[in-house]
């Protein structure tokens, strides 16, 4: 791969990652309630992480890097939804949510356990 192509790719990937993290931060402040904020806090960040680790792999293409990158992304992908689920569930059961911005709530009245 020529240096120019690699530079462009690096720039693009780092930029994508940075924009995703910025959006996550902005969303964290702007979104109206706990559950919506969780979306901003946990999700675009995974895509940003994928982009930045891919960038590391592109710039340092060895087997060890690639396997480590795979492990990092795999663990993030497995653990972030769990964290989001636990916080979301706690927020729902303790009624830390704004029901006025829910257009439908099919979980309500189903015995909160």
């Amino acid at each position, binding site marked *: 791969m020529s240096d120019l192509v690699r530079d462009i790719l690096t720039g693009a990937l780092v930029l994508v990652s940075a924009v995703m993290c910025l959006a*996550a931060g902005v969303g964290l402040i702007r979104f109206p309630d706990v*559950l919506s904020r969780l979306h901003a806090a946990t999700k*675009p960040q995974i895509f940003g992480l994928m982009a930045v680790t891919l960038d590391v792999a592109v710039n340092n293409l060895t087997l060890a890097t690639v396997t*480590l990158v795979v492990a990092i992304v795999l663990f993030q992908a497995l653990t972030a939804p769990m964290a989001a*689920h636990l916080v979301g569930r706690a927020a729902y059961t303790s009624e830390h949510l704004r029901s006025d911005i829910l257009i439908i709530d099919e979980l309500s009245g189903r015995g909160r356990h």
Partner: protein
Amino acid sequence: MTTVRVRLANFASQLPLLAGLVVLWMLLWGKFTWLNLVTGAVLALLVSVVFYLPAVKLSGRLNPWFTLTFLMRLLSDIARASTEVALLALWPRLRLTNAIIQVPLRTRSDLILTWTAVATSIVPGSIVVDIDRVNSTLYLHVLNMKSIAETDTFRESVMKTERRIVNAFGSKEDLERVRRLQSATKHPGRHEKHESEGSV
């Protein structure tokens, strides 16, 4: 005699998971050496004995092609939905309406239920709030839903994810069940489910 055989069979069914742990160990070291293989195997055994959990029932079926298409689709979903959530966060006029919807899945396997839950909640825009394991039902909090029609579309997309996962590595029974229910009800709405579930 039989207990020994049952134990051996149980052990054999857990082998793919042990192998997974060993591979993970080597991923962390970043290279393959025989020493890594041996220490990985010892650690995998140690971990599964010391941190004992109820055995995961693997389906014993894997379709490489469907697995690949499922993973590719998952990646593109993550990319698309991340951009959507990012745009939403940065959009100047923010008027957010959300929904908590019930998605009745067709599978009866814990493994597929877990995979579907993880696959839907890793895609930005939806969080699993609660799971009804007995009825294989997911309760999802979905960001930026404007109308009931949109929630119906979203529900169907989750069921399509489930279908892709079952196609990829679901058991034969699940595969048949999903195909049968798919053809029986084109629109498995939430209303018919409510009555049958009152007791739970």
